[in-house]
């Protein structure tokens, strides 16, 4: 630790933290746009510049580290002046399309411009005619909004995808989708959450949903595990706040007939996946078994590593299973024509928009809304989840076990499956229910679980580059591998609110584990709703196969 001074305040600083981070931790505000705590400092936007006594010029605080005795000033008239010019220059390239931007009213560019009284249209937008790309009706990349920070490039690279690349055209470096045959988007959506200028977004189906409601369709919403601890952010609640009943009330107000919990689907998936794992372990075939509830990971395997397709569990993902159950079991029970049922999944995820387009899954779920898109529907309809009176989940498919809830965090699927595998193999109440070895933000977690005679070597991975590392170097060191594309799993999903950071994701995950801890039923098999479904509906192999299982196939380049 060393001693420095920032704006006259004496600070004991860590040399390994940049001046920007050090200042922020000490409540000294320094504006920045191109800095993202998940990525390397970009040092390009020119907003975070500071003055260091005894040194000539200004320095980007995101990439400059404190040294003993440093005296730093962050707000000299000169600094304020050049920051303004740089921000106006960023607006001079960026086409302002604020109405449907993922940053909503949290846009740092616009908020700074307001605070500084800038003229955001001082120049005509240089990029106004830059193209908009559509990645398979899943992600839109509007390059006219790009401010050249290159966070998307690093993010895509860190996923091991490199689908986004920089090309030089007409004297300028521009971000483009790769035309190389061996590179394709897997729709993880991390570009969406790491872009400071809202250039990337999911393709929003909300108008179609409104249309269905208007046409008196029987619209059923189901919400994913990870939504409940993130949607509050869109309404100014603390990170990690649990919002369930108020969100349900909001969705009902939009006109949904029923609101169900995808975690119920997660409980069914857990049961089936544990069965499949035990079967594969017994037969010693197609090991290691990979989870397949993350569609970006599935696309990664199908495109980049098709030889591993047999290793993916064939169990469908939770919202697809529940979507199927809604359109069959539920529709029948309620005497509704399945053709009138429209299922909307609210997901922390962009790649789920891709999943529902897959031929073998078509019809299970009609629309996927991201956390952010749902919040925008709320805004549009004057629904404030802070003030709305809460409503309970609809009973039939409303109650999930704690295991179904933690699916939303990296390690959650592995922990749920482990609970169920223990329950099945030991055939008794478990002494140990928490498998903390799977929890936390670490990119690769490993554990060996001993259940009686059986030893299961489990890895939990988040991030596709990490998955690639495991595949290429340690494939046969494990029997079961959970892979989630996004940092910290679905809590860090591409459809989650911006901004995102390690700290924010940690709080969202903590919220989920809190729910699990307080839940009386924490094993999928003990969920009475699920037990009932197995008793009344999923009664034989054929119907289970039809509702819960799928196939995968090698994919060619789609974008």
């Amino acid at each position, binding site marked *: 630790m060393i001693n420095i001074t920032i704006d006259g305040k004496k600070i004991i600083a860590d040399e390994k933290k940049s001046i920007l981070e050090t200042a922020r931790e000490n409540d000294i505000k320094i504006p920045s746009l191109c800095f993202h705590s998940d990525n390397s400092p*970009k*040092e*390009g*936007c*020119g907003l975070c*510049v500071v003055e260091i006594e005894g040194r000539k*010029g*200004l320095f*980007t605080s995101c*990439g400059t580290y404190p040294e003993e005795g440093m005296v730093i000033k962050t707000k000299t008239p*000169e600094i304020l*002046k*050049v920051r303004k*010019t*740089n921000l106006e*220059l*960023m607006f*001079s*390239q960026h086409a302002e399309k604020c109405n449907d931007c993922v940053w909503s009213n949290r846009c740092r560019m616009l908020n700074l411009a307001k605070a500084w009284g800038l003229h955001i249209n001082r*120049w005509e937008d*240089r990029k106004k005619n830059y193209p908009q790309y559509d990645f398979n009706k899943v992600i839109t990349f509007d390059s006219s909004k790009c*401010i*050249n920070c*290159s966070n998307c490039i690093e993010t895509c690279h860190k996923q091991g995808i490199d689908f986004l690349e*920089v090309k030089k055209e007409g*004297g*300028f*470096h521009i971000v483009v989708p790769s035309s190389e045959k061996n590179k394709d988007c897997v729709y993880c959506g991390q570009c969406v959450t790491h872009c400071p200028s809202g250039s990337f977004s999911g393709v929003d189906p909300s108008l179609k949903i409104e249309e269905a409601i208007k046409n008196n369709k029987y619209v059923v919403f189901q919400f994913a595990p990870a939504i409940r601890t993130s949607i509050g952010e869109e309404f100014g609640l603390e990170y990690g706040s649990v919002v369930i009943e108020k969100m349900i009330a909001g969705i009902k107000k939009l006109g949904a007939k029923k609101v169900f919990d995808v975690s119920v689907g997660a409980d069914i998936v857990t049961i089936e996946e544990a069965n499949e794992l035990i079967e594969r372990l017994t037969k010693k075939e197609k090991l290691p078994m990979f989870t397949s509830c993350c569609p970006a990971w599935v696309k990664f395997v199908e495109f980049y590593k098709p030889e591993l397709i047999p290793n993916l569990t064939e169990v469908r993902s939770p919202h697809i299973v529940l979507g199927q159950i809604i359109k069959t079991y539920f529709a029948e029970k309620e005497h509704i024509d399945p053709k009138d049922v429209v299922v909307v999944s609210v997901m922390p995820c962009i790649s789920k928009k891709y999943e529902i387009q897959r031929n073998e899954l078509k019809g299970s779920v009609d629309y996927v809304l991201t956390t952010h898109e749902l919040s925008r529907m709320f805004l549009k309809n004057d629904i404030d989840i802070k003030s709305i009176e809460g409503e309970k989940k609809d009973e039939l498919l409303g109650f999930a076990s704690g295991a179904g809830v933690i699916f939303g965090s990296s390690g959650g699927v592995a922990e749920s499956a482990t609970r169920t595998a223990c329950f099945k193999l030991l055939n008794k109440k478990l002494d140990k229910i928490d498998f903390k070895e799977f929890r936390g933000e670490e990119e690769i977690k490993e554990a060996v679980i001993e259940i009686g005679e059986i030893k299961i070597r489990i890895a939990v991975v988040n991030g596709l580059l990490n998955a690639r590392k495991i595949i290429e170097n340690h494939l046969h060191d494990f029997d079961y591998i959970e892979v989630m594309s996004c940092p910290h799993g679905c809590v860090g999903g591409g459809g989650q609110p911006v901004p995102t950071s390690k700290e924010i994701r940690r709080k969202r995950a903590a919220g989920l584990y809190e729910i699990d801890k307080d839940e009386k039923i924490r094993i999928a098999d003990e969920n009475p709703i699920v037990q009932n479904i197995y008793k009344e509906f999923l009664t034989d192999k054929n119907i289970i196969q039809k509702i819960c299982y799928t196939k995968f196939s090698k994919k060619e380049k789609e974008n």
Partner: protein
Amino acid sequence: MKTDIIQKLKEANLKGRGGAGFPTYLKWESVLKNNSSKKYIICNAAEGELDLAKDKYILENYFDEVISGIKIALETIDNSSAYIYLNKKYSSLVDKKIIEGLDITIIEEDTGYIGGEESSAINFIEGKNPEPRKRPPFVSEKGLFDMPTLVNNVETFYYISKINKGEYSNERFYMIVGEKIKGGVYELKDEMSIREILKLTNNYLEIPFYVQVGGGAVGEIMIEKEFDNLVSGEGFIRVISYEEDPYLLMEKWAEFLINGNCDKCTACREGTYRILEMIKTRKLDLKVLEEMFLTLEKTSFCALGKSIPTPFRSLINKVILND
């Protein structure tokens, strides 16, 4: 042997000829004293400055001398390998037979102006974007593949060979260009004034003129009363008569810079573009220009962006406004 060449470089007072003018022996010492198991040598032959072609001339005429300079470095620095970072346009000029059997790899590049900056060159050789790196660490401590790296310009290696042979007596290469003069590349004494050089080479115009010195894009404009100044930086002189349109020259600079920068910093990418836009209208708003210049100087990451105001400001003040 090792201290021998360093001593010679020191005595010759050779300064890097890439434009920055850093004493060569210090770079060599820094790489040598590092205990790393692997070291690299890069001969920078990217020559990306506007209208500059003195390295081209040296490669064309004295490639063997340049190679012998690189060989001295290879012999002096243990466990080293060398690269020639070569402007693609110069590909046909080098006789590849000369490097056969030597640990020298030619990397051809077409990265433009910023790609010639030494840390950008290192990034390019590593397969990364040719963008400047932050200093410290200096490339002599942590350069190519994170190993200590000696980066010297073509001309510097040429003179290292000459110094080693005892054939150096303070020369350097100058490139002189201009619409109304013959121009060319000349090997003359270092530290000569603008006037001396132009007179000696018969490039001193009869009609009133001014010059740009030190670089074809970011070199400073000097007028007659400054002609006794020494030529520093790159040995480059552009002779411009008052009959020529200074706006066209500024357009040429701005277009070159927009095309040659890495686009990382807002001011360099967008500010330079707005400067060009303004020049094209032929109406200069000095307040806006100064705002752009200040932001370029203060918030650009590398020396290229910081130096962009130099040619514009000096041309506008000394020639257009005639201060």
